[in-house]
Every structure is written in structure tokens, then in C-alpha cells.
């Protein structure tokens, strides 16, 4: 717990000193790792990774708080150790600025998640955990092959072995090579997002994972996919990206609508939230690939996408926590078993409604800002996709409000439900920050977006000749502090 708070402090420290006016990489550290292959240890943060790093460090203390118990369970210690390992894996993948270094963390994240789902999960946990790992690994290995091809192309063009992103962005490839490699990268990330039609592992993994596992999975792990698309697939293979963009937008739109419709008919609250993730991440995907008429990416859609990543992490994280709360009390998640809980659990109801509204995208919550920006951008790029995606927003409201209605309202007729107690102090402790943040993000979006804006504008305008310059942001921070 202590170390996670230290992590949060470090995250906030980074947030505070991050120079929001620049698109450059900051806090860069670079060392040789495997010089004979040109693999380096380079870490740095820019506008894309900043919010996600802070989100990660923000979620972990809450997750640990939810695990806090007086009983000294023997299985508790390895569980916490795995959470910490997962945390370092996620942050490592977010800050790595070297392709191989990134890949190491990207794959290493799987191991702790595998054990979290497989050991502490539900009935079909082994099936879910195995499916999760195999899906991700297959995509990743193809990505690794493409990455090596890119690295060799860089060597042929410059005569230097390097896997650093700063160098690899400069590689110019013919369009057909780009298509293959973009395909390999996109599939790897699409599996992680997960984008329709690669989403089938997600409901299994979510349903079987313990609450905490679901929260981390939805909160940060899925964002690795969309982050990867933004960080690697788009700027490295710009021409192929333009070619593929309609396909990806199509998949995104199908994901939005399919996810929403599937969520609607679910009887299991957790499954419903899981499918809602498929739908919400569809928005992020179409936001990422909104190519405007002039060949530029839409700045609005991109900022919406990055914002929606964070917002989805918070609202869906809260929803999974809330489902966990009732599951702990009743050991069921079937919607039919509940009803009328608002009467004896008013605080639970309040927070569930805030999370739902944020997830639906009601103005005043973070969800609204993200979805509005995305739709705004997508409409300009492709009106049809925009219209269909708006339908997804509507459907989102339908199924999320169904969830609320079935759990919270109606007659409190099940005798078991009458005994349920409202949130405990511990549950307050981890739910209130999420609820507060969901609202704050809706009312003051600019304070979050200012820091990411330069990076986004730069990617949107110049992704065809994208480059990363970097400087030691930390030193600047200290100077301005003096």
C-alpha cells in the first residue's frame, strides 16, 4: 500500500512538472541495454502516455485499498506482489521509447494478469486465462516479426542498428511493405483493445477475473492496445494507415453497435459491463483513425480518443468495483436477482448512477467530453460512420440505464436483498475518488487536455513525417521550481 501511494506521488509529480506546452518527450533517460543489437533502455513521457501513466498510478492504490482486509489470508501476499508486477509492467510499456524494450513489458504484463485471472478467478477461470494469453501472444509474435523487419529496414537505410523509436520513425518504407507491417501491428493491438472481431477473449476474461483484475483490465490494460495504435502503428506506417483507416473505422463502428446490442441482452451485470467496454473502445478506435479530407487526422477526434481512454478507465473501473460490491454481498451477478436496491443502499445507488451517467456520456461527466469530441471529428471525416456511432451512444444509454433500473429500482421484493447493507468505509474509500474524478473530468476537461494537446496536434498534422525530439524535461522542471 505504501509503495503504491509512493507510486501515485511519483505519478502526480510527473504530472505537475510535465511541460504542457510542448510535444516533445520529457523525463527522458537512456542507457545501452543490448548494444550489439542496438537495443536501448529509453524511457520518456509525452502527451499520449502522460494521462495513462497517471491513471495507472491512480488506480493501483484504490485497487489495493479494496483488497485491504484484517484477516491475514495466506494467498494475499502473492496476489499483491502480482499486482505490483502488473503495475510496473504497465508503466514500463507506457514509458518505453524503444520497440524491443516496449515489447518486453508488453508481454511481461501477461504473466501477472494470467495468474490473477487463473488463480483467483471464477469457475471457468482457466479457460479464460489461457484464452487471454494465447490470443495476445499470437498477435504479439506477429508484431515482433514486423518489428524486426522494420529494424532491419532501418539498418539498411542508415547502417545503424537501432530499435529506438526516435530512429525508427524516420524509416521510409514502400507502401506494400507498410501494409503488411501495419497489419501485423494493428492486429496485435486490436486484439488487446479489443476491437471487433478480436474481442471474444474479453467477456470471458472479465467475467472470470476477480473484481480487482477486471478493474485493472478495463482501466489500463485495454488502453495499452489503443495507446499502441497511437504510438506505433499510426506514425510508423502512415501511408498504410490511410489505406487501412476505413477498415478500422468499419470495425470500430461494428464494435460499437455490436458491443452495445450484446450488452443489452446480457443477464449478468459483469458481462454487460464487459461488452460495454467493447462498445466504448470502438469509439476510441474510430477517434484514432478519423482521417480528414486533407489527409490529416482530426485533432478533435484524437483528443477525444485520448480523453475517452482515461474516462473509460475511470467509469468502467468504478462499474466493475460496484458489481464487485454487490457480488460480495449476494454472490450473484444476475440482474434478475436484484431490484430496488436504491431503497436500502442509497450511497451505492448514487455512485452507480454517477458511473453509469459518465459511461453513457451525459453532459457534465467525462464521458460526454470524450464522445462528443470523437463524434465531432468523425462526422467531419465520414458522416456515415459518425451517424452509426451516434446510434451507439443511444444504445449505450439504453443498456446502461437498463442495468441501473434492474439493480436499483423497482420493488424490493427479494427478501435476501432487504438485508443488504450500504457501502462500508473501505468501499467509500475507493469508490468516491472515482466518482469525483468522473465529474471533475466532465466539468474541467481543459485542465486535463492542455497537457496532451501539443502531442496530439503534432501527430495529427505531421504523422506522415513524424519524429520525436526529446529533452530533459526534469531539469527544466527543477529550474522553474527554483
Amino acid at each position, binding site marked *: 500500500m505504501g509503495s503504491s501511494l509512493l507510486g501515485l506521488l511519483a505519478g502526480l509529480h510527473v504530472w505537475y512538472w510535465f511541460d504542457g506546452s510542448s510535444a516533445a518527450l520529457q523525463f527522458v533517460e537512456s542507457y*545501452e*541495454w*543490448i*548494444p*550489439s*543489437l542496438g537495443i536501448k533502455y529509453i524511457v520518456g513521457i509525452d502527451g499520449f502516455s502522460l494521462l495513462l501513466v497517471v491513471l495507472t498510478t491512480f488506480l493501483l492504490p484504490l485497487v489495493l485499498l479494496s483488497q485491504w482486509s484484517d484477516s491475514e489470508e495466506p494467498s494475499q501476499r502473492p496476489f499483491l506482489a502480482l499486482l505490483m508486477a502488473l503495475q510496473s509492467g504497465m508503466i514500463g510499456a507506457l514509458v518505453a521509447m524503444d520497440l*524491443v524494450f516496449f*515489447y*518486453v*513489458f508488453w*508481454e*511481461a504484463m*501477461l*504473466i501477472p494478469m*494470467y*495468474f490473477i485471472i*487463473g*488463480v483467483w478467478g471464477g469457475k471457468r*477461470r*482457466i479457460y479464460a*486465462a*489461457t484464452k487471454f*494469453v*494465447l490470443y495476445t*501472444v*499470437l498477435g504479439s*509474435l*506477429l508484431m*515482433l*516479426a514486423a518489428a*524486426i*523487419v522494420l*529494424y*532491419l529496414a532501418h539498418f539498411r537505410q542508415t547502417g545503424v542498428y537501432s530499435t529506438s523509436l526516435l530512429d525508427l520513425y524516420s524509416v521510409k518504407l514502400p507502401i506494400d511493405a507498410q501494409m503488411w507491417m501495419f497489419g501485423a501491428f494493428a492486429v496485435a493491438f486490436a486484439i488487446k483493445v479489443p476491437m471487433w472481431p478480436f474481442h471474444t477473449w474479453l467477456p470471458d476474461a472479465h467475467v472470470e477475473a476477480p473484481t480487482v483484475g477486471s478493474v485493472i483490465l478495463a482501466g489500463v490494460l485495454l488502453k495499452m492496445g489503443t495507446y499502441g495504435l497511437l504510438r506505433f502503428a499510426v506514425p510508423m506506417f502512415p501511408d498504410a494507415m490511410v489505406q487501412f483507416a476505413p477498415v478500422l473505422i468499419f470495425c470500430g463502428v461494428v464494435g460499437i453497435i455490436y458491443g452495445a446490442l450484446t450488452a443489452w441482452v446480457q443477464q449478468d451485470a459483469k458481462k454487460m459491463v464487459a461488452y460495454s467496454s467493447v462498445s466504448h473502445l470502438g469509439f476510441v478506435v474510430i477517434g484514432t483513425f478519423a482521417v480528414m479530407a486533407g489527409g490529416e487526422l482530426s485533432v478533435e477526434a484524437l483528443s477525444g480518443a485520448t480523453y475517452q481512454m482515461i474516462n473509460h478507465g475511470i467509469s468502467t473501473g468504478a462499474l466493475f468495483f460496484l458489481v464487485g460490491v454487490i457480488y460480495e454481498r449476494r454472490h450473484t451477478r444476475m440482474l434478475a436477482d436484484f431490484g430496488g436496491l436504491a431503497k436500502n443502499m442509497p450511497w451505492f445507488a448514487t455512485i452507480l448512477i454517477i458511473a453509469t451517467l459518465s459511461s453513457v456520456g451525459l453532459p457534465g461527466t467525462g464521458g460526454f467530453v470524450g464522445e462528443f469530441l470523437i463524434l465531432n471529428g468523425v462526422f467531419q471525416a465520414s458522416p456515415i460512420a459518425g451517424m452509426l456511432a451516434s446510434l451507439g451512444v443511444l444504445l449505450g444509454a439504453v443498456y446502461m440505464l437498463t442495468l441501473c433500473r434492474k439493480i436499483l429500482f423497482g420493488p424490493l421484493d427479494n427478501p435476501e436483498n432487504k438485508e443488504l447493507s450500504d457501502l462500508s468505509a473501505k468501499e467509500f474509500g475507493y469508490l468516491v475518488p472515482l466518482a469525483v474524478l468522473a465529474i471533475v473530468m466532465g466539468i474541467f476537461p481543459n485542465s486535463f487536455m492542455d497537457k496532451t494537446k501539443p502531442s496530439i496536434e503534432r501527430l495529427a498534422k505531421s504523422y506522415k513525417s513524424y519524429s520525436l525530439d526529446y529533452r530533459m524535461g526534469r531539469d527544466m522542471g527543477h529550474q522553474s521550481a527554483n
Partner: protein
Amino acid sequence: MNFEVPSLSLPFYGSAFPILFLVVTSIVALLLGVSKLNTPKVNYGLNLFAIIVALGSAVYQYAISGGAGEIYLSGGFTAGLLGFWGQGLILFCAMVVSILLGDSYMSPKFFRGEIVSLFHMVLAGMLTMVATDDLVTLFVGLEMASIGVYALIGYTRPTKLSQEGAIKYFVLGSIAAAILLFGFAFLYAAAGSLRISEISRAIGKVSGHSWIELGAILTIAGLSFKMALVPFHMWTPDAYEGAPTGLTAFMATAMKVMIVVATIRLCENGLDGVHGVWLSTLSLMAAASLLFANVMALAQQSVKRMLAYSSIAHSGYMALALSAMSGAGGGMSVPSILFYLIAYVAVSLGTFAIIMWLENERCENVIVDDLTGLAKQHPRAAVALAVFMFSLGGMPPTVGFISKLYVFNAALSNGLIGLVVIAALGSTISLYYYMRIIVRMFMLDSTPVLGALIKPKKSLATVGIVFVSVLIVILLGTVFPEPVMQIARKTAGEVTGG
């Protein structure tokens, strides 16, 4: 060939010391066997002493040797970096296996005079094979090693299973040896020399000679048998399952090092000139091994059988790297194989150490279901085995990942994209059966089958070996891959001329 009387100098005795010393200790062990001193303890001590001395000597020779070394006995013995590297690794495997056998229920059966003698003969043969430039010497070394191992499999544990394994290995192995010899004969007939390096020169002059091509193909087929590449892999599961586990570990590690090093030397130094003929065959076998072995491993219940198929698949990765040896990125190929060998040896020894430790009470083969609930009974062993499984599956942050990265890199520098995609598929499949073990150890709750029955004796040596293996697997995967890569590069310089 002119048979001049070789002038043997002190440097020769120095560089051939590991081989000569093991021949001597082999005779000593045989004599001890008929004396009053024939106790497991004495034999164990003699065995370990001899191997450690030979290992020290090989490492010392490696350290003082520079590049392509002296050639003695008109090619019969070359004192080069690659040879000493192979000898060192083989002796290291032999040392670890001996220690493990000393801890196991096999100890009184294995540490008898005649068996230790046989074991040292095998080792002398292996050391000869990795450090020779002469086809006949290479063959003699190979047969010394193989025949000894057939006997060791069948003799040390007389059960039906092990005898089946030994006979199968023997019959098929003899045919493979005949094929190899047939290939050598063609090479000799065409090139007029048995020296590997001279064959290479002769190929330049008689290019397109069909005898050379035939010889090359037959040679590769014979070597693939010993490397256990599909379709020459049939003996592997039976021999691995039948042999006492200590010897299985020995076959999986030391025998593999021997055959791979000899193959590298033959391919790089001898047959490079006609690589157009056999390279595609090798790639095909690599692809077949990667797919077939990984699929077969899915269905195995016996852990040793599963590891046998896994070993075939890992041979496939090495063959994949070897198929990239000519052309633009050829310089990467041999170092990547050597790095792969080190990684594979470390992981395999650790895995087999744990399996032997589990087997001690029951004296029979462990099946996958036996591992159920191991994490509750012996959490540390379970964690170590999980690390090894992830490394075999190639997950970071273990050395398995780095070695695979290195092999893929070598293959892709030569444009073998299709093969790498197949390898990626194979890796994904393989992860499934490695995870089956993890699932049983950590995630299944049913009553522990083996874990409850067994109270394996605490053994400091086994624990130490497992601990060191875990350390190597993690450290080489994260912090220190570079120094080992430098060694692999330097060693490969002997045959690639870099």
C-alpha cells in the same frame, strides 16, 4: 591423404587435455570397478572430480585461445574457440547431471565402476566430435557417444520402457549413422579429402558435382536425425521417456550441444559452397519440426514425453537460425544458435532437476496430472518450474524471449519471413502446453496427487542447481544478455571467420 607421423607437442597435450583425461579416468573407473573401492561414493567422487578437472581445463583453453586455433593430427583435432566452447558446455551439462544423479534414487545404480567408465567414454567421444576438422574422427566421436548412450539407457534402469527406448534409439540411430557415413563417402569421393575445410575448398572447384550434392543431403539427413528434426524425430519421445531422467537431461542438453556444434562446423566450414542444395531442405525440416512437434506435445500426458517434443521444437528454432546462415544476414546466424543453446541448456537442466526431485520417491515417470496442486505443497519448486515453462515458451522477461528474438532477427535478416511466421505460430501453440503445467500447479484445486504422496528429501545440491538456473534464466533475460552475446559472437568467429 598422406599419413605423416604427427608430431605431438606440449600445446597439443594441453588443448586435448579434457579428452585425454577423460579417457584415462574411464580406464581408472573400470579398474576401480573390480577393486574393493567399488562403492557409489567413490565412483561419484571420481566422476565429479574428473568432469570438473576437464571442465576447468576446457574453460582455461577457451580463455587463452585466440580465434581459429592450431590444427593437430592432420585435422583430427582443432584447438579453436568453437570446439572449446562446445566442450565447456558439454562438460558443464555433464557436471550438473552427475550431481543430480547423485541426489536421485538412481545413485547406487548409476555410480558403478563400469557405468562411470562408459559415461566418461561417452564424454570423450562428445568432446572429440565438437573439436575436429576430420570427417572420420567426427564419425568416431559421434559413435562413441551414441553407442555409449544406447547402453546407458538400457542398462542403468532395466525396465521394459527403457529397453524399448534404447532399442528404438539404437536401431534408428544405426541407420542414421549409416546414412551419415554414406554421405561422408560421397563427399570424400568427390572432394578427395576427409578434411572439412578442404572439402569446402574442393567444392569451389567442382561446383555442380552431383556427388557432392548427394553427399551433402545425406550428411544433413544423418545430422538431422541426431538433432531430432521432423521427420527424423521418431526415436526422441521413446528414448526420452524410457531413459532414467538424469540421462534424459543429459541427452536433451549435452547431446544437443554436441550435435548442434558439429553441424554448425560442417555447414559453415564444409558444405557452405553447396548450400543451395541443402538449405531449403533444412528450412523445410525446421518448419515441420516447429509445427508438428508443438502440436504433438499438446497431447502428451507424460512430462518427459512432452519435454521430448518440446526439445524437437527447440531444435526447430536452431535449424531455423541455421537456415539463415548464408546471405546478407549470415553473420547473425551462428551467434544466435550459440546463445539459444546456452538458454536452452540452462532452462532444461533446471526443469529436469525439478522433475528428478519429484520422481525420487515413486521411481517412475511423472505425468502432467501429478503436478496438480504442487504450488500448495512446494511453492518454491512450483514458482521455479513456472519460470522455466515461461522461458521455454519464450515469454519475457526470461532468457527464452531474448534467445528467440535473436533467432528471429537472424532469420529475418535473410528474409525468411514465412518461416518466422510459422515459428510464431508454433510458439503460440507451445505456450499452451507449457501453461498446462502451470495451470495444474497453481490453478487446479483438486487433491494433490503427487504432491501429497511425496515428501521429497531436501537436497542442497538440487535446490542450488534449480536456484542458479532460475537466476540465469531471469538475469540473462533482463540485465545481462549482452556479455553472453559477446561470447557467442566471439566463439562463432572461429567458423564464420568474423
